[in-house]
């Protein structure tokens, strides 16, 4: 799949075009596989990799579903790249790695033995690291790349240990062998923790998320979309594959670990996004929040499955997969929008944007749809999946364990809380970037982006609406996955009239995206009609009322900082130690008034800074070892040899 790089002018369309063709083919194949009648998993063994073992590939329902996510996102990113890539100053830093990155993600999903899985996982990490470092002259990008590389290696190490434990003493690294083997509770617990470290660090679970808001925005925007929308889903895939497929029957306490982590991830992710002024970093933080939502749903599925409630587990898992698909769609859309803003203005700081809706109407529309979808407003797709998750949470009274009985409503509360914050966050993002008046000349001179970028964004808008009003199709599409993993599925939805979805039973709850859309559309047009017809037909333009002040400037409008201030005062003081300092000069003083906001990342201060300090301390003190005399080196060798021999003697 990887296309050899060439530096000619035609390389950009050629490579993105080829990637697009391959991704569309793979997408269609995966879709056909998932929608066809249940067939046996396709297994393929390639004589590559380890000698006499080879590389095992396998396509089953779960892999097919994630292949759809990967290739849908990649195809859209390729279309977007056709236009966006033209602005790239150094395309040969991006072009060779872009198809390789996509190929790596596809291979992770297809892998059927631990060796292939880890190899493609690491391949995916390395190529995405190269893409993060595409603009390596920026100091911040270099730091992001470094932290990303460290975290990715750490995650792979955790996964390596997890697979080592799964393979056990017999050393069977094929997934088919691991699946049939029996695992003791100790191993199951350890593997779960290691997976949360490994896959969680790639997906961005708090507190392993520190690299994500640095690395995702550093890459070119279509790659950011891939990393945020697709690569985190590959990490989710890794978690699902091992925990639901390979590990066998889950324990009920394992769901508590997942739920606690996921709940923290959701809230911290969205709070960080709320106080962020960099548009792309805001989107990256929101990715962390959505990963939290997906993991909440996975934790619910674990809890229900451990208690033998297959139907509820199927509901939760379906919701998780649905949300993963949705998030890949609207997060790609939002990153494309941010990329379009970046191309048009050269800015991604919300403080320097504003009023773009007049200059970039199509981009603004697409971004708005993305914002509505991610804020989980009906009738778009974000609402459908989050509604399903709430339906799953509402099943908590049937769980027998008291711990879970108390835990699940609490997590539901957190989910509702973060959903509200998401809405606030994206009102703020859209409002300050696209509405109001331009804050800088750059924003004033913005121009609409090229057709390819717009096509990619509008395609995703259509997908947002389609999956929003026809969630039944997705739910039925996912059912082979839950059937294979949990042995249960949600009731078939396609037979229900008017495209309603009924997750459990007709009497309990149902949702109809199409009707909501029709209702919103008709009531809104009716209202508009009534207002324009009955009140006044004329469009009047007048000066806005400036509270008596002469002349409104763009500095008087809401800024991202002032919009978030109430929430920052309520939540930021605890979670980020936010401190505000107002510097008001005395009358007659010519200095400007200043408002300084200080925020600290407590996770970095509490967890990573000590680690960094310990490593620095150890490195400083081990540095002396570089300057020993020859005899001391020899003595060290000798002493360690003798010590090892002594240990061997005394041990046996």
């Amino acid at each position, binding site marked *: 799949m990887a296309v050899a790089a060439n530096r000619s002018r035609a390389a950009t369309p050629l490579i993105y075009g080829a990637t697009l063709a391959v991704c569309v083919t793979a997408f269609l194949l995966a879709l056909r596989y998932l929608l066809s009648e249940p067939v046996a998993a396709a297994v393929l063994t390639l004589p590559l990799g380890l000698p006499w073992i080879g590389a095992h590939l396998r396509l089953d329902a779960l892999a097919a579903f994630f292949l759809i996510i990967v290739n849908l996102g990649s195809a859209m990113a390729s279309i977007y790249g056709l236009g966006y890539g033209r602005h790239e100053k150094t395309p040969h830093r991006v072009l060779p790695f872009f198809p390789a990155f996509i190929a790596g993600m596809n291979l992770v999903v297809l892998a059927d033995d631990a060796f292939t899985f880890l190899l493609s996982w690491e391949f995916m990490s390395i190529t995405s690291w190269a893409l993060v470092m595409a603009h390596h002259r920026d100091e911040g990008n270099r730091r992001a790349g470094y932290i990303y590389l460290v975290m990715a290696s750490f995650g792979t190490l955790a996964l390596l240990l997890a697979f080592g434990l799964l393979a056990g003493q017999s050393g069977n690294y094929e997934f088919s062998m691991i699946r049939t083997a029996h695992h003791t509770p100790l191993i199951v617990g350890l593997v779960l923790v290691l997976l949360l470290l490994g896959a969680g660090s790639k997906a961005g679970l708090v507190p392993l998320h520190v690299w994500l808001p640095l690395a995702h925005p550093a890459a070119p925007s279509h790659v950011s979309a891939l990393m945020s929308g697709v690569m985190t889903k590959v990490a989710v895939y890794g978690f699902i594959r091992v925990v639901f497929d390979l590990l066998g029957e889950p324990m009920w306490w394992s769901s508590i670990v997942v739920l606690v982590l996921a709940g923290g991830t959701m809230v911290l992710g969205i709070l960080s996004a709320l106080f962020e002024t960099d548009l792309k970093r805001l989107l990256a933080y929101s990715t962390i929040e959505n990963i939290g939502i997906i993991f909440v749903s996975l934790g619910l599925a674990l809890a229900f499955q451990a208690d033998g409630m297959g139907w509820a587990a199927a509901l939760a898992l379906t919701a998780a997969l649905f949300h993963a698909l949705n998030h890949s769609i609207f997060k790609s859309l939002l990153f494309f929008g941010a990329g379009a803003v970046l191309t048009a203005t050269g800015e991604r700081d919300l403080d320097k944007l504003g009023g773009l809706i007049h200059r970039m109407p199509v981009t603004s529309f697409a971004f708005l749809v993305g914002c509505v979808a991610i804020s989980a407003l009906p009738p778009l797709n974000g609402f459908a999946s989050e509604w399903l998750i709430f339906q799953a949470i509402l099943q908590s009274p049937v769980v027998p364990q008291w711990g879970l009985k108390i835990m699940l409503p609490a997590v539901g509360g957190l989910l509702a809380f973060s959903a509200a914050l998401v809405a606030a966050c994206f009102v703020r993002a859209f409002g300050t970037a696209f509405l109001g008046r331009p804050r800088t000349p750059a924003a004033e001179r913005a121009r609409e982006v090229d057709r390819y970028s717009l096509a990619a964004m509008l395609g995703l808008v259509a997908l947002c609406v389609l999956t929003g009003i026809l969630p039944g199709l997705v739910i039925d599409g996912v059912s082979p996955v839950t059937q294979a993993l949990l042995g249960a599925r949600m009731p078939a939805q396609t037979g229900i009239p008017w495209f309603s979805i009924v997750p459990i039973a007709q009497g309990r709850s149902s949702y109809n995206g199409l009707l909501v859309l029709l209702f919103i559309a008709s009531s809104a047009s009716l209202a508009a009609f009534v207002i324009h017809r009955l009140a006044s037909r004329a469009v009047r333009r007048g000066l806005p009322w400036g509270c008596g002040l002469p002349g409104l400037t763009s500095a008087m409008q809401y800024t991202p900082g002032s919009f978030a201030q109430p929430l920052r005062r309520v939540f930021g003081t605890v979670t980020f130690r936010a401190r505000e300092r107002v510097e008001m000069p005395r009358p007659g003083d010519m200095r400007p008034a200043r408002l300084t906001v200080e925020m600290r990342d407590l996770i970095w201060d509490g967890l990573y800074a000590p680690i960094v300090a310990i490593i620095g301390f150890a490195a400083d003190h081990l540095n002396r070892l570089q300057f020993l*005399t*020859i005899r001391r080196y*020899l003595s060290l060798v*000798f002493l360690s040899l003798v010590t090892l021999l002594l240990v061997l*003697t005394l041990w*046996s």
Partner: protein
Amino acid sequence: MHGIAFDVAHLLAGSLVLISFMMLYQDRLYALLNVFALHALVLALSVAWQAFTQHAPHLYVTAAIALIFKAIIIPVALHRIIQKLGIHRDIETVVGIGLTMLVGIGLVALSMALMLRVTSAADPLAREDLTFALSVVLLGLLIMITRRNAVSQVVGFMSLENGLVLAATGAKGMPLVVEFSVAFSILIAFIVIGVFLFRIRERFDTVDDRALDDFRGERR
């Protein structure tokens, strides 16, 4: 296999260890070289005896290599180096002889305690051989770390390698290629070390490695 064959092998391997001990307390360089030549000679005899008892003619080649290179060429070459450098009157030991000997005895005891336990399933000859070989290796390392002079460190390294050859011949069926490559690598190592000795001498007017440390500005 038992009887006289075992006893002779035992005797030769044991004397190798004994000669290693002798090397530990030689404080004159010429004497050290002579003892090393004796060490290599006994090794050659031991290997030849193994070749005879195991009916493995290729071991005779190993013995010949040991005899020619280690018992003749290398000692003679080192003799000439010492002469050229004019250090034949140097006396050096870092740690006192008594302490070194005690440590050496401890090392032999350690290798016995370890090897005899670990190889309880192997045949007695291989067990004895491995035990003595490990002792010789450890004593060679001990020689290397108790000396400052680069030439005597080279000698310690060579005697360490003798221990490896002893271990290899004690185990039946080691291919000739391995022995050739080991002998060859030792020769290369010897050449490289020799060249370095002269370079060091050229620069610092001594082959005492303290000069190197002083040059690097080390604190001791």
